[in-house]
């Protein structure tokens, strides 16, 4: 700690702080343009100049100057004011003053400072920038005439996103921010640059000319897409979410968002939303009243009784899931499941037998301080981009060693000195076993207190490092080195995502990752963690609330099988589109056709909803009150920004009405429901809503200590022998099928594609955008080709979001699909 005086105020701060940070902590205001909390100090704008007694004779930039013992700082004097005003005058020499048409007007830092320092005239004259306005891309509008060259966009794109789209080019007056070769932007479109820009040089195009900042009502809530649980701040006006506002004061995401979070909100305003309940009359879905629809549903469920199957999505709030579970109890069925019933098994059947837990053991911010990180599947960045940015920062800022067990290259493998353990498809478990084996062979494993070691060691016989290296195509040294780093690191993290397109070996992967976490001592150690992250916003909540089949009852797979075999009376599908997103479409189709009574509760008339007997219009995440539990166990509150369209009701209200129909009591509101669920949910016992503050509340604490420490033998996979193997996965711009209704993500990736590696494309003479046919056991699909350099030879990739592709006709949940390619 260091003692210093700022404006006569005695302050004690950590010795790594800068003057600006010290002042901020003490509540003393210093103006800044180029400073941002999450970026490294830069000192570009010179607005934050202050006087330091010990450094008399010149003014000191407070944002880059570290504090020293006994420093006496003065943040305001006539001279400082004059100099700051001059700095602003210099900036305004070339800055085009078009505040009336600039969307930043009203929240522009330069505008605010100009006002504060009363810069009404300019002593200097000079040329105004007259650069062409970018931009051809649909999401970010760049107008470099307004740029003040603070470099925040350059820095955030490099330091946080790790993409590096921008750089300064040219010199002197002509200096500007540009992309490589000054072309149009072709990036992740996460819009971090938008959120950082202090002026109107980079703006979100979907919000262009929509409203003024002061007209927007701000509501803090949680993003409804992935399990990362980023807090978002809606800017609402006219009962529409107009934009997502920058807010780095809540949640764990530091104001960072991905393309889905920042630009994917628009589906809530969609005109295609369901607004009235629909009921099937003579084969047609017709509009009806809530009373009729609910009466029909209640009657149908009562007839079905224990023959009712309930399939839930993982984007319902905890309170809603709690009511859904009560409803299942009231109806008398144990057939309750979520998210396809398979992909989350890494938690329920993987971590449970090994660690005795069903959740990640640590929190996201801890990863930033990790020394070694192992990511299983490069797709993690696609499913959880903002957690991916934390990994970026760990690597870039703290020099963490990143290793990626993956079947394709991508964002994470491109990180500085990242080690890609690029294996043949489907062999992740083999590699994890080899890592364990390597630890045991080299005596690096922390075996103290571990159960089942002997048996485990025996099971590893077949996973000698060399043998696995040959089988998977990964260098043996890379495996050994990764194992060593994980074992020797002070803080380490093992990260794995799960989701609907990753059903293959989900249980095995969970066990293998847990075994490795035990042997490296990562599980339960302060600062280290094993992360198993769900694909959807409340995946963890669904596990916590046990939206799982009761003992002896059916899970999703069994339910669909039973329905297809005419053994299920009714299906209730809430917040899920199984037809579009579940593996094995033929089975789902058959189940929906054969099931006598199907109720679908959703935002849109999805493909599944089109098959339903009753369709109930539900509310989106932006319209409800409740809580989500993210992949690090953080419980965060959802607040409604807008009202639901038409007669659509929140899932909570629908479940309440159904419960009433069954004569069961339901909590009166979401707050009471939370109290009720907290009382019965392990880990939530001590939690109440008052404890869920701006940063949420992590149940179980920052580090969750394993209940058990069992090593469980787990078998790897066999290599698929096929010339071409198709991988199914998630793409960065979409999450589930909901984002297909959002204009932002759709403007970047609007149609399905099959990705080819360059080698294969050259061999098959396939070019970008060309139509290709993919033939597999289940059928044939056609789509445009996309040629990239991510994929190794023989491997193809297709995103699972687009049901128009019919990918789940050939995808039955396998790790890789043997396919034939033709044009």
């Amino acid at each position, binding site marked *: 700690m260091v003692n210093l005086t700022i404006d006569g105020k005695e302050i004690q701060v950590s010795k790594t702080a800068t003057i600006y940070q010290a002042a901020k902590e003490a509540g003393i205001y210093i103006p800044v343009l180029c400073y941002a909390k999450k970026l490294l100090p830069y000192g570009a704008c010179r607005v934050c100049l202050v006087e330091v007694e010990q450094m008399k004779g010149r003014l000191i930039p407070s944002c880059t100057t570290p504090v020293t013992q006994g420093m006496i700082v003065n943040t305001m004097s006539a001279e400082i004011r004059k100099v700051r005003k001059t700095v602003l005058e210099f900036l305004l020499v070339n800055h085009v003053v078009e505040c*009336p*048409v600039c969307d930043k007007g009203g929240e522009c830092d330069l505008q605010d400072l100009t006002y504060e320092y009363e810069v009404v005239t300019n002593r200097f004259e000079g040329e105004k920038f007259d650069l062409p306005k970018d931009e051809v891309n649909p999401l970010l509008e760049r107008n470099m005439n307004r740029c003040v060259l603070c470099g925040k966009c350059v820095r955030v794109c490099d330091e946080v996103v790790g993409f590096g789209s921008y750089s300064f080019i040219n010199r002197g007056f002509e200096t500007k921010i540009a992309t490589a070769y000054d072309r149009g932007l072709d990036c992740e479109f996460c819009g971090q640059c938008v959120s950082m820009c202090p002026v109107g040089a980079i703006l979100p195009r979907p919000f262009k*000319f929509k*409203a*003024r900042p002061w007209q927007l009502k701000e509501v803090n809530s949680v993003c409804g897409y992935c399990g990362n649980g980023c807090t978002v701040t809606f800017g609402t006006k006219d009962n529409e979410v107009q934009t997502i506002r920058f807010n780095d004061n809540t949640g764990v995401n530091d104001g960072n968002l991905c393309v889905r979070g920042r630009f994917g909100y628009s589906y809530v305003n969609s005109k295609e939303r369901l607004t009235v309940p629909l009921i099937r009359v003579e084969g047609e879905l017709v509009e009806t009243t809530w009373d009729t629809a609910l009466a029909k549903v209640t009657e149908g469920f009562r007839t079905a009784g224990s023959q009712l199957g309930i399939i839930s999505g993982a984007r319902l709030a905890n309170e809603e899931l709690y009511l859904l579970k009560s409803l299942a109890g009231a109806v008398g069925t144990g057939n309750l499941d979520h998210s396809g019933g398979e992909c989350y098994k890494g938690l329920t059947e993987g971590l449970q037998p090994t660690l005795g837990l069903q959740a990640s053991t640590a929190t996201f911010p801890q990863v930033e301080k990790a020394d070694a990180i192992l990511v299983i599947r490069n797709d993690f960045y696609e499913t959880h981009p903002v957690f991916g940015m934390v990994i970026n920062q760990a690597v870039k800022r703290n020099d963490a060693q990143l290793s990626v067990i993956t079947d394709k290259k991508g964002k994470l493998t491109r990180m500085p000195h990242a080690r890609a353990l690029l294996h043949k498809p489907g062999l992740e478990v083999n590699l994890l076993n080899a890592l364990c084996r390597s630890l045991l062979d080299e005596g690096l494993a922390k075996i103290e207190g571990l159960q089942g070691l002997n048996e485990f060691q025996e099971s590893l016989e077949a996973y000698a490092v060399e043998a696995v290296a040959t089988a998977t195509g990964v260098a043996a040294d890379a495996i050994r080195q990764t194992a060593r780093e994980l074992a020797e690191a002070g803080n380490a993290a093992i990260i794995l995502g799960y989701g609907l397109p990753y059903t293959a070996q989900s249980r095995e992967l969970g066990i293998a990752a847990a075994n490795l976490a035990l042997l490296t001592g990562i599980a339960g150690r302060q600062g280290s963690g094993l992360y198993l992250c769900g694909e959807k916003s409340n995946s963890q909540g669904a596990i916590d609330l046990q939206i799982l089949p009761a003992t002896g009852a059916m899970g999703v797979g069994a339910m669909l099988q039973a329905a297809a075999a005419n053994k299920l009376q009714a299906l209730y599908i809430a917040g899920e589109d199984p037809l579009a997103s579940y593996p094995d479409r033929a089975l789902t189709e058959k189940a929906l056709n054969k099931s006598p009574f199907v109720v679908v509760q959703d935002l849109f008339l999805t493909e599944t909803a089109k098959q339903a007997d009753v369709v109930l219009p539900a509310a989106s995440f932006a319209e409800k009150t409740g809580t989500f539990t993210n992949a690090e166990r953080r419980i965060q509150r959802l607040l409604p920004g807008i009202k639901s369209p038409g007669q659509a009701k929140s899932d909570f209200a629908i479940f309440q009405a159904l419960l009433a129909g069954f004569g069961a009591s339901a909590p009166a509101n979401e707050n009471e429901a939370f109290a009720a669920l907290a009382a019965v949910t392990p880990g939530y016992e001590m939690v109440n809503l008052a404890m869920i503050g701006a940063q949420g509340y992590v149940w179980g604490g920052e580090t969750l200590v394993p209940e058990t420490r069992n090593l469980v033998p787990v078998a790897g996979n066999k290599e698929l022998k096929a010339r071409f193997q198709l991988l199914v996965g998630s793409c960065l711009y979409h999450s589930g099928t909901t984002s297909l209704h959002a204009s932002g993500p759709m403007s970047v990736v609007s149609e399905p594609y099959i990705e080819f590696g360059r080698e294969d494309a050259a061999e098959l003479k396939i070019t970008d955008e060309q139509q290709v046919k993919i033939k597999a056991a289940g059928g044939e699909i056609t789509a445009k080709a996309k040629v990239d350099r991510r994929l190794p030879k023989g491997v193809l990739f297709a995103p699972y979001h687009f049901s128009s592709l019919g990918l789940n006709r050939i995808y039955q949940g396998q790790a890789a699909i043997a396919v034939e390619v033709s044009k």
Partner: protein
Amino acid sequence: MFREFAKGLSITLKHLLPGHSTTVQYPKERLPLAPRFRGLHRLVPTQTREKCVACYLCPTVCPAKCITVESGENAQGEKYPKVYKIDLLRCIFCGYCVEACPVEALEMSDQYELANFKREDFNFEKERLLR
């Protein structure tokens, strides 16, 4: 006391003599208006479009909340008021909107005969204000 009465009444009576009346025979006669009179609003046109750039300052400053603006993007990519509406029944003619306008797109004319028969007729849309 009588003298004071006579003095006062003489002033009153003087005003009754022809040529001393201040009444103006409206509408045949009209008084000249003050140069800064605040009458009906007028949106200033340019050669091709309205001068207004839909910056939303006038609806923001309006104390009576009678101005509705909706901005849009025209074919040239410029910001323009898709909707510009003043509800004259609510307007208090304070002139803040004119004062706030950064591009001098709004002014107040000397038109003050604004009576009408229907409520709707007091809704001045963009086209009417551009005249």
